[in-house]
């Protein structure tokens, strides 16, 4: 589905990723872990076509090289990207947000059958959005905003869903819901690339794990290799972490 080989990316002169290679196989999920500032969001942005731009290496999606393509073309190929911080259009209504997500579908009318069907699916999956379809997105609660962000990305019927820290800033109960949803999407056949911080929750939906540190891949492998949480801590923190809570 997605093959990234030796990707180096930079904001202007400032390099943030070096020789990153990873892949997401069809119908599976890959989780990217890493400490703050490790380059996780930069990696996702580079995949989606936002800055940092690729300076070397290749991004291949569905057998096609998409390295230099504009973001909207990549989305049209079937990539859905849920950005960090519940990135939605706060001044538009819920329904308008969903419609914006559907621009990749054929036709420019808002009422095409495909678009209607996609809307119905979204509302069926997220009843809470159906209730508030006329509400301004900025007025939703944090959890609802995250749901809307995911629903919006799903509107274009993607083959690969990229999520950037969907749990950030959400209460634990809602985090649980979010991961339940991701698990469900995966079961429905969607490939998933996920950047996360809540390792325990993320691992429940992971097939493959990539750890990034300082813009480079520090470790990777199938989730089995990581099933002992202490291994993750070791890679992640660079030492066997003692949970702060225990102090």
């Amino acid at each position, binding site marked *: 589905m997605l093959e990234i080989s030796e990707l180096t990316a930079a904001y202007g002169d400032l390099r943030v990723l070096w020789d990153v290679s990873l892949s997401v196989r069809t119908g599976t999920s890959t989780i990217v872990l890493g400490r703050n500032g490790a380059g996780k969001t930069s990696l996702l942005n580079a995949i*989606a076509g*936002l800055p940092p731009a690729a300076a070397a290496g290749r991004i291949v999606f569905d057998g096609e090289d998409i390295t230099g393509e504009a*973001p*909207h073309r990549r989305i049209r190929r079937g990539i859905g990207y849920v950005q960090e911080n519940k990135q939605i259009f706060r001044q538009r209504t819920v329904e308008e947000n969903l419609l*914006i997500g559907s621009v990749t579908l054929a036709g420019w009318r808002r009422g095409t059958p495909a678009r209607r069907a996609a809307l119905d699916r979204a509302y069926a999956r997220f009843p809470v959005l159906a209730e508030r379809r006329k509400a301004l997105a900025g007025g939703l609660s944090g959890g609802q905003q995250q749901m809307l962000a995911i629903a919006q990305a799903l509107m274009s019927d993607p083959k690969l869903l990229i999520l950037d820290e969907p749990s950030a800033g959400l209460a634990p109960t809602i985090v649980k819901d979010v991961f339940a949803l991701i698990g469900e999407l995966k079961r429905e056949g969607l490939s998933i690339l996920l950047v996360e911080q809540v390792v325990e929750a993320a691992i429940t939906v992971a097939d493959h794990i990539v750890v990034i540190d300082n813009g480079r891949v520090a470790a990777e492998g199938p989730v089995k290799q990581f099933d002992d949480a202490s291994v993750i801590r070791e890679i992640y923190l660079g030492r066997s972490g003692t949970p702060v809570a225990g102090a």
Partner: protein
Amino acid sequence: MTTIWSGLVIGALYSLVAIGYNTVLLASGVFNFAHGQLIMLATYASFLGSVTFHLPWPLTVLFATIAVAVVAIVEERVAIRPLLARRDIHAALITTVGASTVMSGLAEVTAGSDPKQLAIPISNDPLTILGGVIAPMDLLLIIATLAIGLGIHFWSRRSLLGIASLAVAENRDAASVRGIDTKLLGVGAFAVAGGIAGATGLLVGAHTYAIPSLGNSLALFGFVAIAIGGAGSQLGGLLGGFITGIIFALSARYIGSDYPQIVVFGVFLAVLLTRPRGIFGRAMERVV
């Protein structure tokens, strides 16, 4: 009533500029200072079509629409595109002013500074409507402006493309990773704004003649219309233009010509104090 009609005609001109400003502002977040000049060029294109080439009016309108849309696209390519990567509104202010200066200069160099009269397709004998006198072309100008203003307002609120352009205005990057071609939309907005300017060139020029200085006068008063109506609101720009025009006409008629702008300023202050975002501007969200 004649004064009101006169105000409506001038107001229509201002509204057209405001519509042009808003169309570009909403889709690409840029304030296109050169829109007054695009309208000025539209009157020249209509002059070329109607007088020089003796085209029938539908062809003149078509010719002007295409010609000005092309100019607008070129402007976008030269003065806006290079800035997009860095979201810098002040640089765009300068480049669009630069573009407007180039357009004025070129018009002057090629067409001279004297007004040129357009060929008008219909008899322009004044009509008496509701107790006031108005030229038929001017009436058409008012009607066309209302139709375009309302049309584009509802289009931008209802159609998928309109919503998409509002999304781009709110957050470029986020819109692009929803699959929206932001560059195309930006060019599209310029093309639409230029096209509208071109299409109305014949009606505008019938009133104002084709003259290079038209651009600057319109640019300024379109700005006034936006100030009153609220930036980024098509409906606000439309009504702001008409309100400005009527105030201008009434105060020139009853107070004296030193005062129209002062009265408009008074109205602007009143609007500002009661509705800080303009009559139809939206309240911003809290920043904390």
